[in-house]
């Protein structure tokens, strides 16, 4: 029940964040998908970030974005040409996207309760670390993949 509601609100929130801040429409795929089946591993280098949340339930949200898509997002976000983008720009864009996604999601779940969000952190080994848990879809872990015109992005949710 908690996971279903969480995934519903994350799906709405990722659309709002991507369209409002990055002008990129997204199309969520149906069902709970593994990283291996997501196509994210075939997209070349990908960056991943994670954020913790604590409240009436707790857990983590990981955001996984192929570098090609992340570059386009950073360009749209800051108005910088890709030639001027640095690693700091890309990591900052990834972390800020995750931050907005998490904040927007929990404001939809319960606007009055106090969900505390951690500070987003880059997963140094990127997508590898996110897939290492070998999280088969379960009641505690779920994976949402959304498609854009420039490739897929993944959101992995774990509830403790």
């Amino acid at each position, binding site marked *: 029940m908690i996971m279903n509601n969480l995934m519903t609100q994350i799906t709405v929130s990722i659309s709002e964040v991507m369209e409002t801040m990055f002008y990129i429409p997204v199309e969520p795929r149906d069902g709970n998908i593994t990283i291996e089946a997501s196509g994210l591993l075939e997209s070349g280098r990908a960056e991943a970030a994670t954020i913790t949340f604590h409240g009436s339930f707790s857990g983590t949200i990981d955001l996984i974005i192929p570098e090609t898509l992340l570059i386009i997002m950073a360009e749209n976000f*800051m108005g910088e040409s890709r030639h001027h983008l640095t690693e700091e720009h890309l990591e900052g864009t990834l972390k800020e996207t995750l931050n907005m996604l998490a904040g927007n999601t*929990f*404001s939809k779940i319960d606007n009055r309760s106090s969900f505390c969000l951690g500070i987003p952190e880059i997963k140094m080994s990127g997508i590898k670390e996110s897939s290492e848990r070998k999280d088969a879809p379960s009641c505690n872990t779920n994976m949402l993949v959304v498609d854009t015109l420039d490739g897929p992005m993944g959101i992995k949710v774990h509830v403790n």
Partner: protein
Amino acid sequence: MTFSILLVDDSMPMRRVIKKAFKAAGYAGSNFSEAANGVEGLEKLEKSWIDIVITDFTMPEMNGLEMLLNMKKSDLLKDIPVVVVTTEGSQEKIDQFMKSGAAGYIKKPFTPEQIRDMITSILGVSNDNEQSDDPDNGFDF
């Protein structure tokens, strides 16, 4: 009209986005200072004249609320308007910020128009006729 604007956010891309929204709203000639957390923000406030502070809520070392409370204790800083730009989902935290004397808040994700409207309502001026000719300062950031 130009202003001295302090942007306090640990996210460099977000500082850049907010700065761009200010420029698009007609404040391109304003002076922008930046800080990565509340401690740095207070240091900037003590060293230079600032007309308005735009701050994130959650930051390392000192968050936006702690910075605001410190400003309210200072005769020199207590009247400077502070706007929080936040991802915080909890209305309770936003209420706490407003009760502590914030001039307003904007929730992320935001549109550039929301930034412009907030600035205009607080500073009491509209700079619609001072839009920058710089195409980089358009709203399509």
